[in-house]
């Protein structure tokens, strides 16, 4: 069970970079959690730590998608990748760009004045959440994504096997690339700034990324249990279709209170309430397909695939829909409830997705038929239980904040430093639990297929 094409091995480069950034993300996340209790805890201030936390998340997921796509495209097209050196160049160019951006953030953290305007542009940090990367880096990232997409499309054109999975995957990636552009120009109005900013942020995570997730879900179910392509692809179309039918106008739930007209209260309220529906379909799809499974070839891969579907629905769907109606959101907007939703949504929808893709594809890239799955399960439970409790503590903090600040009118800082203090303590403790899970996963990633199989797990039932 090895890969047929050299191009698929490129995926491993991307996975390794993604896994290392994941570790960085969680380490700085713990620093950030401690700063909620002791703001002066670290040499870098919270704003830099937080920027590193969310940027490393976004980048490692994107890099993970890229690796997964190189694998899927060659497999689905049944041909070698169009240009392997180009893919390797694109990989190292991406690593270099990201490294420079990170060094820039750290430099700015040490010397805030280093971010003074140069020719009307902030050289180190744009000061816009999630898309802090400066303009020169934006351009390099776009070039990298275009090279990546070009390589993939040329590969598909070699054999013209337009399978549904790779069609949807590529359209999701093209949509992703296009939706980066609304974040690349300056507007004098903060209202317009946030309006276009949500095009990037919302239409990524509740649009193009969910399309990619839908395509990869179908691919993984096909690979791990040999489910029928025709059925998977039909459901994939229905799922990603519903994602966009609800998600595009669902952007309106970010346009309630930022200075935009009030009709968005109706548009956003109605359509974003329906956003969990396609995610529920994905859960049902995963269970239905798994129930029919006769020969599971990769149990940890399947395990993570199903877990991704479930936590995508719980985190992105349920935790979002509880405060998506304007009548509720008026009181909860801008509170810790958003943080809670953000954590469970990104973990369920995308962290588990990329890890699932790694477990589904890495064994064949490394050329092993069987591997010891015990660390894969162990890390899953450490990460998932810790994340669930992290989210519950932040949800608790958000409810206290909503009641005390928004309803009673207490001061923000008073609520944060006194009434919510023990929530921060618990969150940091569970953060360490999550780090342990990530540590086990990282060790497993580097050791997978490189150590002899222990006799005990030779029987698949043991899994």
């Amino acid at each position, binding site marked *: 069970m090895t890969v047929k094409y050299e191009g698929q091995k490129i995926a491993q480069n991307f996975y390794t970079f993604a896994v290392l950034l994941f570790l960085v993300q969680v380490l700085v996340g713990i620093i950030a959690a401690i700063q909620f209790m002791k703001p002066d805890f670290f040499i870098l201030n919270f704003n*830099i730590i*937080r920027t590193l936390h969310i940027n490393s998340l976004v980048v490692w997921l994107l890099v993970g998608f890229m690796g997964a796509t190189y694998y899927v495209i060659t497999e689905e097209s049944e041909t070698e990748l169009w240009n392997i050196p180009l893919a390797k160049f694109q990989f190292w160019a991406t690593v270099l760009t990201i490294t420079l951006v990170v060094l820039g953030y750290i430099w700015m953290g040490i010397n805030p004045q280093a971010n003074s305007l140069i020719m009307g542009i902030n050289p180190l940090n744009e000061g816009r959440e999630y898309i802090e990367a400066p303009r020169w880096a934006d351009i390099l990232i776009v070039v990298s994504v275009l090279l990546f997409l070009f390589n993939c499309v040329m590969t598909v054109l070699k054999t013209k096997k337009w399978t549904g999975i790779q069609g949807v995957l590529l359209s999701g990636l093209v949509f992703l690339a296009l939706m980066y552009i609304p974040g690349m120009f300056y507007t004098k109005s903060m209202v317009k700034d946030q309006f276009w900013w949500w095009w990037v942020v919302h239409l990524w995570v509740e649009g193009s990324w969910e399309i990619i997730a839908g395509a990869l879900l179908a691919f993984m179910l096909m690979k791990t249990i040999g489910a029928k392509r025709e059925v998977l692809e039909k459901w994939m179309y229905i799922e990603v279709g519903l994602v966009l039918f609800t998600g595009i106008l669902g952007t309106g739930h970010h346009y309630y209170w930022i200075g935009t007209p009030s009709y968005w209260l109706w548009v956003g309220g109605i359509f974003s309430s329906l956003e969990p529906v396609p995610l529920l379909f994905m859960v049902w799809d995963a269970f239905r397909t798994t129930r029919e499974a006769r020969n599971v070839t990769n149990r940890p891969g399947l395990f993570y695939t199903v877990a991704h579907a479930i936590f995508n629905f719980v985190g992105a769907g349920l935790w979002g829909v509880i405060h998506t109606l304007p009548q509720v959101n008026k009181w909860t907007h801008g509170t810790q409830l958003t943080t809670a939703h953000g954590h469970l949504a990104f973990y369920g929808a995308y962290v588990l997705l990329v890890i699932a893709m790694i477990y589904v594809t890495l064994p064949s890239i490394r050329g092993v038929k069987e591997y010891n799955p015990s660390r894969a399960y162990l890390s899953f439970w450490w990460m998932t239980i810790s994340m669930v409790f992290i989210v519950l503590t932040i949800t608790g903090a958000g409810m206290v904040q909503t009641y005390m600040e928004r309803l*009673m009118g207490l001061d923000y800082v008073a609520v944060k430093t006194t009434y919510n203090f023990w929530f921060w303590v618990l969150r940091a403790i569970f953060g360490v639990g999550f780090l342990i899970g990530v540590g086990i996963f990282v060790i497993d990633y580097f050791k997978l297929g490189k150590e002899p199989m222990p006799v005990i797990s030779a029987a698949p039932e043991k899994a």
Partner: protein
Amino acid sequence: MTIGNKPLNYWEVYMSNKAAKNLFIFGSLFFFVIFLALTFDTMSTLDKRAPEITEKVNAGKMVWHKYDCIGCHTILGNGSYFAPDMTKVVERKPAGYLKKFLMDPKAVNPKAAMPKFGITSEEADNLLTFLDWISKVDTNGWPPKPILAVAAGVGGGELTSGQKIYQAQGCSGCHMINGIGGTTGPELTKVGSRRDGKWLHEHFEDPSKVVANSAMPSYKHLGDQALNELTEYMLTLK
């Protein structure tokens, strides 16, 4: 539905892969076109919902970006949830205090979590102009006034004389404002947009004269000035 002995799924019969694919493509395009149209309409209204953007407002916005303020704060409710929301901060704190705080937070408040960034006097002025601008944007009523603080009169500022009369007379025993108070009498949360001053004043003097069968007692004994102040307060409730 069955064909032979093999049960068939509804979708497998009535929806081909091609139909599902077309539904995905054209449905998505359909919703994206609606989204574009709404975006176009929104863009044409945004400038009317906010004060004019002067060069100073823009310079202040650039200061906001330069120091990555959103890495801790939120503005219009979006940001990092680590420090207070800045949308209405100029309404909560005096400008003189804010300027000193921006330039050296811990000198003003030793317990402040915010570090000293080296914000210059000019930058602080520009930033405050920008924050003043954002506080005047029409945000569809966000952030909402905290209902308990408003009822207790601690939601910022001294009680007006009308509010004091409202409390002293126990009006909230029967009437409700912003969710606080009784349900016996009509709700007054938006009474200012329903009634004019003349009507309200007459009503306080003799309720049953303007509302048939009203059970509310007359408050004529409070005197003209007190009733005027109470009326003024009622007119602010919109």
